[in-house]
């Protein structure tokens, strides 16, 4: 969304159907606290006695009810996606004694399979934290961060599949294949892609999958639309989701840790505070006419980040620094975020947080 200078709310509001607009306006007038909805975003992983099918159009997949996951254009660091607005992917998951399998389905009018000069294939990726579990900090959603690597499975429309790892933007590195297989079929305006991997896979930069032990595994997704020349950071990505293995027995504290925090602020006040507190000088977000590129873009901050992450970024910005060019300074051998910690009352912090969470 692009803001019209002088208008308090971006012009596209006018494009929203009137019923929705009324709801939005109501929400603006009568702010309601965003409540913690623990594991609302979890994806059930169905137990299967037989091996999950690699065929994306197999009946066992199509009859399973999918979870719908929102994916947002990547706008945190350049090069940023040119597409605008959220889209969704449908995710189904199964596991057997030996294998875990994910089925991704998303709309794409025109499949692009070939990679050539100026041509980019459609693609999809599954991102895992290399380390997760009780007490572990989730990696930054965009390719992890220094000290918190992510493992990736990457499928492209040309049929290739790769095992990769990264610890921040620009650090993506191919790994020895960990046995991940992928097959994609485009049919009736949709890509259907299945990823499978043996539960046990050796290697340093791997996701360890032990369903019985923890039962809950964070995962995130990304898609690339080749027709729009999407590649690299030009993509759509989801927030961290949680895979809930059917027979897993996660402990309550860990489940709570993965749940969303309560946000009790007033988003409309938060929007005003974005100017008062100087956020507008560095961050672009809908309604900020300057659209600066000094800090990460925030246009879909609420869609791709957890409340806990955004809260930490407000109060302790140097804890996890978005690994983008010029986002930090080196001081005494330590990286310090260019962003000063938020100064203000807790209520103001909550208002800003509520506003950020509403950006999706």
């Amino acid at each position, binding site marked *: 969304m692009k803001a019209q200078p002088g208008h308090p709310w971006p012009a596209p509001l006018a494009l929203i159907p009137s019923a929705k607009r009324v709801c939005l306006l109501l929400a603006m007038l009568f702010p309601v606290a965003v409540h913690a909805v623990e594991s609302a975003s979890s994806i059930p992983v169905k137990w299967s006695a037989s091996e999950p099918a690699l065929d994306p159009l197999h009946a066992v997949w199509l009859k399973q009810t999918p979870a719908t996951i929102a994916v947002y254009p990547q706008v945190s660091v*350049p*090069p940023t996606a040119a597409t605008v607005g959220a889209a969704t992917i449908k995710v189904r998951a199964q596991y057997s004694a030996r294998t875990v399998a994910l089925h991704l389905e998303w709309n794409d009018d025109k499949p692009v399979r070939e*990679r*050539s*000069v*100026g041509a*980019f294939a459609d693609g999809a990726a599954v991102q895992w934290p290399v380390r997760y579990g009780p007490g572990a900090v989730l990696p930054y959603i965009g390719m992890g961060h*220094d000290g918190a*690597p992510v493992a990736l499975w990457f499928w492209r429309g040309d049929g290739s599949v*790769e*095992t990769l*790892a*990264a*610890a*921040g*933007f*620009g*650090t*993506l*590195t*191919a*790994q*020895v*294949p960990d046995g991940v297989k992928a097959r994609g079929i485009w049919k009736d305006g949709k890509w259907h892609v299945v990823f499978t991997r043996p539960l046990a896979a050796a290697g*340093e*930069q791997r996701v360890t999958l032990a369903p019985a032990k923890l039962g809950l595994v964070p995962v995130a997704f990304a898609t690339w639309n080749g027709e729009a020349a999407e*590649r*690299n*950071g030009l993509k759509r990505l989801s927030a961290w989701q949680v895979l809930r293995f059917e027979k897993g027995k996660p402990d309550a504290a860990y489940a709570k840790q993965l749940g969303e925090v309560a946000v009790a602020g007033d988003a409309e006040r938060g929007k005003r505070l974005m100017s008062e507190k100087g956020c507008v000088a560095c961050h672009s977000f809908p309604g900020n006419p300057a659209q600066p590129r000094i800090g990460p873009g925030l246009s879909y901050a609420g869609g791709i980040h957890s409340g806990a992450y955004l809260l930490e970024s407000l109060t302790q910005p140097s804890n996890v620094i978005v690994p983008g060019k010029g986002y930090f300074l080196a001081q005494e051998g330590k990286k310090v975020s260019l962003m000063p910690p938020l100064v203000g009352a807790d209520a103001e912090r909550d208002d800003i947080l509520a506003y950020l969470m509403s950006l999706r």
Partner: protein
Amino acid sequence: MSKRQLAMVMDLNKCIGCQTCTSACKTQWTNRNGRDYMYWNNVETHPGNGYPRKWQESGGGFDAAGTLRPGRIPDLNQDYGAPFDMNYQEALNPWAKGKPGADGPPHLQPVQAPQHGPNWDEDQGAGEYPNSYYFYLPRLCNHCTNPACVAACPRKAIYKREEDGIVLIDQERCRGYQHCVAACPYKKIYFNPLYKRSEKCIFCFPRIEQGLPPACAQQCVGRIRFVGYLDDAEGPVHKLVEKWKVALPLHAEFGTQPNVYYVPPLSPFKYDAQGRLTDERRIPDAFLVNLFGPRVPEVLKTLESEREKKQRKQPSELMDLLIAYRHEEMFKLDLAYYQKKADGAPAKSATDKLRHVIPIVPAESLEERLENREVAAGNHSGETT
């Protein structure tokens, strides 16, 4: 900025457009494995669209504020011109059952109609007879001091060598995003559709490290190419660029600080309507200024006056340099510099180095090795940064 900077000077007054440099480069580096369409070195006619077509209007480089300007990726068929095959089998084999077309029996023609090529508008030029004009512009990667490709790569896969400023793409880090292809205002980075990675002129660094000039310069029959280090006051490049100031960068306004320099071309004088020679040159100054910047008239004046001196049998260091009586004097490289760097030991003789035999690896296993490279990268690093 690198410690030293290799540079090339090309005297456009001497280029005859023979494409020997192009052939030298192509047979050395780009005649196989997805590189067939690439011309790391090409010679184009100006005025003309160049190669890839209209590269001067394709964006990229930096704006005045130092921000990357958006650029476009040329089209394989319409801008680069993909290599095409001829219907030899159909047209030239008397036993083949070629289908007669509307215009008689099958004749030799391209299988697919070509849309463009590296010398598509060769020798067309501009102007009306008898004042028509054109000149040749050989181009390669400028190994810029401020490369737009380096700035555009989100993976830091492109780097400028510390020792001599050669710009290279790390083939193990490149993931074929092609941001560099769009960002280079000279369109001298090419995507390899077979290996799915970008590639470019490497200034023949394996030759440079043996004290030899790049293949394009070595093979140049017109003796237009000088190669050396900008900081080497004894070298021909330094003399032309810094001392005589007759070598100018191409499109300096792109903001990348290119390190290939050109001595702008003088041209014959125009005829007026009565067929009398005027004192106006056929190539308009404005056209050359657009390419090589505001110093063009000044440089042309220097060339004229030094040329006259030489005609009057007076000594002219500049003309002697540009004439290049001895080809080897056009190159001043530094073998010892690289040998010292390589083993910290005193320099060996050039022939010692040249006799070193590199074992020939069968093409099959080379391809396999390339395919396994990414795996190897994961293997040895373990680390991801």
